[in-house]
C-alpha cells in the first residue's frame, strides 16, 4: 500500500541518520589518538578535539537559557491557563505563537545586536562582544514559547472538577492554582522542561552568531567571553573559518559531534515522552 510506504520512509530516515553518523564517527575515532579527545580545547584544524569543551559550552548556554525560559514560560502558562479571560487569551496566545515562529537566525541577530551590548555589557563590564551569556539569553528567549505552550496544555488538561473541589473547600484562586493545578500537572510541566532543554542543546544559529569562537575555543567556564557549543562547532566545521573538506579527521569530527549531540537529545526526548505519556494515563 502506498500509504504504508510513506510511513516506512520515517523509519528509513532514522536508520540513515544513525548509519551515516556512526559510520563517519567511527572513522574519525579511528584516525585520532584517544588523548586528543581530552586536549586543552577544541581546535579541529590543529588536531585538538577536546569534546568536553563543547559539552560544557552547550551546558552553559542551556543552563542560562533555562534560567530565563523556565520562570517566564511557566508563569505565562499559569496565567493563560488559570487567570486569563477568553478575550485576553485570544490576544496572548497568538502573540506567543508569533514569538515561537521567529527563526533562530533572527534571535541570533538580536542576541548580538542588542542583548550583548545592552544587557550582558551592563552586567559584566569587561565582556567581549561575542559571549556565551548573550547566546544563552538568546536561546532562552527562543524557548519561552515552547515551555509556555506545553506547560499550558498540561495545566488545561487538569479536570475542572479538581478546581471546583478546591474552591468548594474555601481556597482562593492562587491556592488552587499553585497547590492543586500545578501539582496535578507536574508530569506535563516536567516534560515541557525536558523538551526545552533538548531544544536548547540542539540550537545552532543563536550560538553561531552570538558566541563567537568560531575558530575554536579553549575549555572555558567564563560566560562573559566567547565559547563553542556542540552545535556551533558543527556549523564552524562546515563553513567559512573552519571549513575543511574531504576525509580528513577534522572533517569527520563533524560527524562525531553530531553523534554525541544526537545521542543526548534522543535520550532527553525519550524521557520527556515518558512524562507526557504519564499525563495522558492519569486522566
Amino acid at each position, binding site marked *: 500500500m502506498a500509504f504504508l510506504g510513506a510511513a516506512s520512509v520515517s523509519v528509513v530516515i532514522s536508520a540513515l541518520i544513525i548509519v551515516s553518523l556512526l559510520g563517519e564517527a567511527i572513522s574519525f575515532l579511528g584516525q585520532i589518538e584517544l588523548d586528543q579527545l581530552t586536549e586543552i580545547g577544541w581546535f579541529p584544524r590543529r588536531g585538538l578535539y577536546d569534546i568536553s569543551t563543547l559539552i560544557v559550552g552547550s551546558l552553559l548556554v542551556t543552563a542560562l537559557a533555562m534560567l530565563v525560559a523556565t520562570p517566564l514560560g511557566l508563569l505565562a502558562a499559569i496565567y493563560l491557563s488559570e487567570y486569563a479571560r477568553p478575550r485576553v487569551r485570544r490576544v496572548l496566545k497568538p502573540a506567543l505563537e508569533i514569538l515561537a515562529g521567529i527563526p533562530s537566525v533572527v534571535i541570533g541577530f538580536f542576541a548580538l545586536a542588542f542583548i550583548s551590548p545592552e544587557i550582558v555589557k551592563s552586567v559584566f563590564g569587561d565582556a567581549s562582544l561575542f559571549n556565551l551569556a548573550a547566546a544563552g539569553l538568546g536561546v532562552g528567549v527562543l524557548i519561552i514559547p515552547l515551555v509556555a505552550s506545553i506547560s499550558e496544555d498540561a495545566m488545561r488538561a487538569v479536570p475542572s472538577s479538581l478546581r471546583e*473541589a478546591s474552591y468548594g*473547600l474555601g481556597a482562593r484562586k492562587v491556592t488552587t492554582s499553585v497547590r492543586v493545578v500545578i*501539582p496535578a500537572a507536574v508530569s506535563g510541566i516536567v516534560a515541557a522542561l525536558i523538551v526545552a532543554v533538548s531544544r536548547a542543546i540542539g540550537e545552532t544559529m543563536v550560538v553561531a552568531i552570538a558566541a563567537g569562537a568560531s575558530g575554536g575555543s579553549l575549555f572555558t567556564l567564563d560566560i562573559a567571553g566567547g565559547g563553542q557549543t556542540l552545535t556551533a562547532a558543527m556549523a564552524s566545521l562546515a563553513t567559512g573559518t573552519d571549513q575543511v573538506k574531504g576525509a580528513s579527521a577534522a572533517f569527520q569530527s563533524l560527524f562525531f559531534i553530531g553523534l554525541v549531540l544526537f545521542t543526548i537529545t534522543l535520550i532527553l526526548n525519550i524521557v520527556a515522552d515518558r512524562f507526557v505519556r504519564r499525563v495522558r494515563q492519569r486522566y
Partner: protein
Amino acid sequence: MTLADSEIRIEVADRDRDPDPVIEPSSTVFEVADLSVYYGSFRAVRDVSVNVAEHEITAFIGPSGCGKTTVLRCFNRMNDLIDIARVEGRISYHGADLYDPAVEPVEVRRRIGMVFQKPNPFPKSIYDNVAFGPKVAGIKGDMDDIVEQSLRRAALWDEVKDRLRSSAMGLSGGQQQRLCIARAIAVDPEVLLMDEPCSALDPIATARIEDLMQEIKDRYTIIIVTHNMQQAARVSDRTAFFTTEVNEESDTRTGVLVEFDRTEQLFSNPADKRTENYITGRFG
C-alpha cells in the same frame, strides 16, 4: 435568645464542636426568598422560596434540567465561578444576606461545604486530601487528629488507616466519595451540600453513604440534590420538588419550585398534581 447566647452558638459552630450536641428544636439555617438564577439572559430557575432547618436533611428532587443543582450551588456561592451567572432574590444564612457584596465567598465556603456528583479527590495522598482544607483555612491544631477524626466521621478510617500516605486515586469509587466527604468535613463546616453524591456509585456504596448521612446529621445540616426519589424518601426530613416550565417565546425551559414539605407529607399526600405525577409516574 440573648445576644450572648447567639454569639456563643456561633462560636461553638465555628470552632470546637461539642462532641455530644444537645439537639435543640430545629431552627432555620437558610431562608431562601424569591430566588432566581440567570445565565446571561437565560433564566435557569425562578422564584424559589424554601427554609432549610438545622440538623435536618433537606432533599431537592425533580426531573433533570429543573435547576436543583443550580439552586444548590447558590448556597455556597459556587455559581460565582461562572462569569455569566447572576442571582436575584435573597438567601439568608442565619439571617445574614449571603450575597451581600461585602461577604467573602471564601468565608461562606468554609462554613458551607460541598460534595460533588462525581468523586473528585485530588491526585495526592489520602492524608493530604483531607488535610488540604484545614491547611488552607489556616486551622491550627494537630493535623493528624483532624485527619483521623474526619475519616472516622466519614466511615472511612478503618479502611484506610494503614495507607494514609498512599494515593487517593487508588481507592474505589465509593471510598473516593467518602474521602470527599471526609475532606469536606475536615474544615468543620456547619452545612454540607451534596450534589447527587451517589449517582456515580453502585448500590452497595450508595447504601453506605445514605447510612453515613443519617449518622452525621446530628452534627451538620445537609441539603442533598438527588434524581433518585426513593433515596429522598428514605433519607430526608424535608423535600422540595422542582419541575420545568416551557417558555413559549424563547423555546427554553425554566426550573421552578413546585412544592416543599415534610418528606412523609410530600410523598404520601402531595399538594400539587405535578408532584403527584412525578412521584407516581416515575420510579428510580
